[in-house]
């Protein structure tokens, strides 16, 4: 990494020298990160999604605020989010934009280790106490202790439902405290002709949310993370237990789990066809896009306790943020923009443009939150340990190609469980060292 950084500062020094004042600029870039140094030049920013999306408008508003503050122009381009993720490595090795929204965890750390992402530790340091220790911890690459992402927003995975549906059924999900309560709730919902526990897994990742929470509830956060990093075995009786619990939910699921993806799950809830649905709250924007009424009807509660030893002390809450490409034209500018987007001014600009995300910064005033966002915060606050979701907590060549099909096979044929877990472990063992 240090090679890369040296290369970058050398390059920016040369560029600065061309503009003028060679000695001064060289001195300045040696002091880079000392806080007050003026960063100049156009910054290129990738917006993941369509320009017409609400998210793009929010990003552009925040970028404009940066331009207003620093005078540096931000050139934004929108890229299909899936394409960007699928081709991430190729894009970053080519001529990437300087900064872009990205995801903390393995997806950042592994790319940082490969030298594709720029160190933004200075910017994280500059944000100071506005970031909690846990947020900084989450954004830190364990292999070198540096940060390669400025953490900005996060969202909880929990049981979502519609208040009106539950009211009509005479049920109260707020009161589900134990596994038995959840099963009873599913049973009661199903009796009224609705889907008890909505699940889709056509995409191969949706059911990972259920696996994650069951594993954390039954075996605790540490076991979950250790399992995903090869320190525990998939053939362990504890993992078998997780799948047994998933099997207990199966009778209450829709009969077409492998036919629908996350959007099918969303539609089940949107169309009032189900009771509980386990999902990350990010889909709530689609409810808001449908109507304010639908959005106001949406609620989230934490997944109930199973093992009293662990209570509800853990949750999947993927941490999102801004990363900077090491190969960008203006790495310093990208880092400066990333730092701005994580700061109070950046957040204020985004929120003014209609962002309903939960910002991790303590500078952010949560009093303006709507009821659903306050509930999201409450759900997050109930947990002490934060997972990032299976496909960000483990290796990319394991999550999608191995765990995804394994869970699908289980949902297809629960009797094959032993075989499935044996093969999952065998495939972990066959992975090359990183």
């Amino acid at each position, binding site marked *: 990494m240090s090679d890369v950084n040296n290369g970058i500062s050398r390059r920016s020094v040369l560029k600065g020298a061309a503009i003028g004042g060679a000695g001064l600029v060289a001195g300045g870039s040696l002091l880079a990160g000392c806080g007050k140094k003026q960063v100049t030049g156009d910054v290129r920013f990738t917006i993941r999604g369509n320009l017409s999306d609400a998210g793009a408008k929010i990003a552009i508003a925040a970028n404009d605020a940066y331009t207003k503050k620093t005078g540096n122009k931000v050139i934004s381009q929108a890229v299909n989010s899936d394409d960007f993720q699928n081709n991430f490595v190729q894009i970053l090795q080519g001529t990437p934009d300087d900064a872009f929204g990205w995801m903390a965890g393995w997806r950042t750390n592994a790319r940082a280790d490969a030298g594709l992402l720029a160190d933004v530790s200075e910017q994280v340091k500059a944000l100071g106490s506005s970031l909690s220790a846990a947020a900084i911890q989450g954004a830190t690459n364990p292999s070198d202790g540096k940060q390669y992402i400025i953490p900005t927003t996060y969202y909880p995975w929990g049981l979502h439902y519609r208040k009106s549906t539950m009211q009509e059924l005479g049920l109260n999900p707020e009161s589900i405290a134990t596994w038995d309560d959840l099963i009873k709730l599913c049973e009661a919902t199903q009796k009224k002709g609705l889907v008890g526990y909505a699940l889709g897994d056509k995409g191969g990742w949706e059911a990972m949310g259920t696996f994650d929470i069951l594993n954390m509830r039954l075996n605790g956060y540490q076991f979950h993370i250790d399992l995903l990093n090869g320190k525990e075995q998939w053939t362990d009786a504890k993992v078998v237990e997780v799948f047994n619990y998933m099997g207990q939910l199966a009778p209450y699921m829709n009969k077409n789990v492998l036919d629908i993806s996350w959007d099918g799950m969303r539609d089940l809830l949107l169309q009032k066809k189900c009771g509980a649905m386990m999902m990350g709250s990010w889909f709530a924007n689609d409810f808001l896009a449908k109507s304010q009424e639908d959005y106001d009807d949406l609620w989230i509660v934490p997944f109930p306790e199973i093992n009293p030893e662990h209570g509800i002390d853990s949750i999947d809450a993927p941490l999102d943020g801004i990363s900077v490409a090491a190969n960008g034209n203006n790495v310093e500018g990208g880092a400066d923009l990333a730092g701005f987007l994580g700061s109070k001014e950046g957040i204020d600009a985004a929120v003014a443009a209609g962002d309903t995300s939960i910002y991790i910064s303590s500078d952010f005033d949560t009093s303006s939150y709507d009821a659903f966002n306050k509930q999201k915060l409450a759900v997050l606050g109930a947990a002490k340990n934060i997972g990032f979701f299976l496909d960000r907590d483990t290796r990319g060549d394991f999550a999608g190609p191995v765990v995804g099909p394994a869970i699908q096979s289980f949902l297809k044929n629960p009797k094959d469980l032993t075989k499935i877990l044996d093969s999952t472990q065998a*495939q972990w063992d066959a992975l090359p060292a990183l």
Partner: protein
Amino acid sequence: MKTAAVNKNVRSRRSLSRNDRFTLSAFVGIPTLLQIVFLWAPTLITVVLSFTYWNGINVSDIKWAGFANYKNIFFGSPVFYDALKNNVVWLLWFTFLATPLGILLAYQFDRKIKGHQIYETIFYMPVVLSLAIIGIIWNFMLQPGGFVQGVMGRDIGNAISIWGNYDINSYVIMALASWRHIGYIMLLYLAGLKAFDSSLREASAIDGATEWQTFRKIIFPTMRPVNVIILVITIIDSLRAFDLVYIIYGTSTAWPLLNILAFQNFAGQGISMKGAAYSVIALVLCVVPILVYLRNVFKEDLQ
């Protein structure tokens, strides 16, 4: 024709003018160069990479893995056998059902049965669509919340399970792929039959051969060049199948094919050279039977 002459003796090559030689070498050289750069080089690199561990980023990180990727696929990845099964089912379905149906249709239409132009158009229509488009159309029709489900009064909660129902999904996918394949084969065969000397058919009719005898003993053997092309197309199309299934299932390997597995291991977050190994397996399965078959055919021709 010219190349044969060129091979035969050196003198005739000398008789080519400088201009001819330039044209010829440009005609042969440029496509060859493009083939080498854009096809052979990547293929060879893929083959080499399939014996390595690499995350696709720094060339210096490439580590020799020997047969580890293949061992992993053959002994550690049950999904590989699901994919192989699906590819083989695809091949068998095409070979014994879709392709013969296409040939049969072509044969019937060639006899100018009543309204054959209408039928031809109907069967030809799907051929103008790519398999990806066919995937989009039928996914839109059949998925939960889709058109057909809606017409049947099924909402997303109680939609009939098709893509996720492993008793029927293979047949549905085969049917969709055949929808296009039958028309394609029909068209190829029809073109062949147009060139067929009708006096042969008349002669066999005079000799009192039945329709089936005429087809089996006269037409089918005479159509051998077209048959070879159709067989090769059938094998290649079955083994390179990707787009239709990718549109329906994405990179999730809910209904795996060899090429989907290759793609899944190349794209996305975890790049692994297991993907290269999958590609090589698909390539070998595709190319070897065809090479063997073509060699036999050409050998017979020479004799």
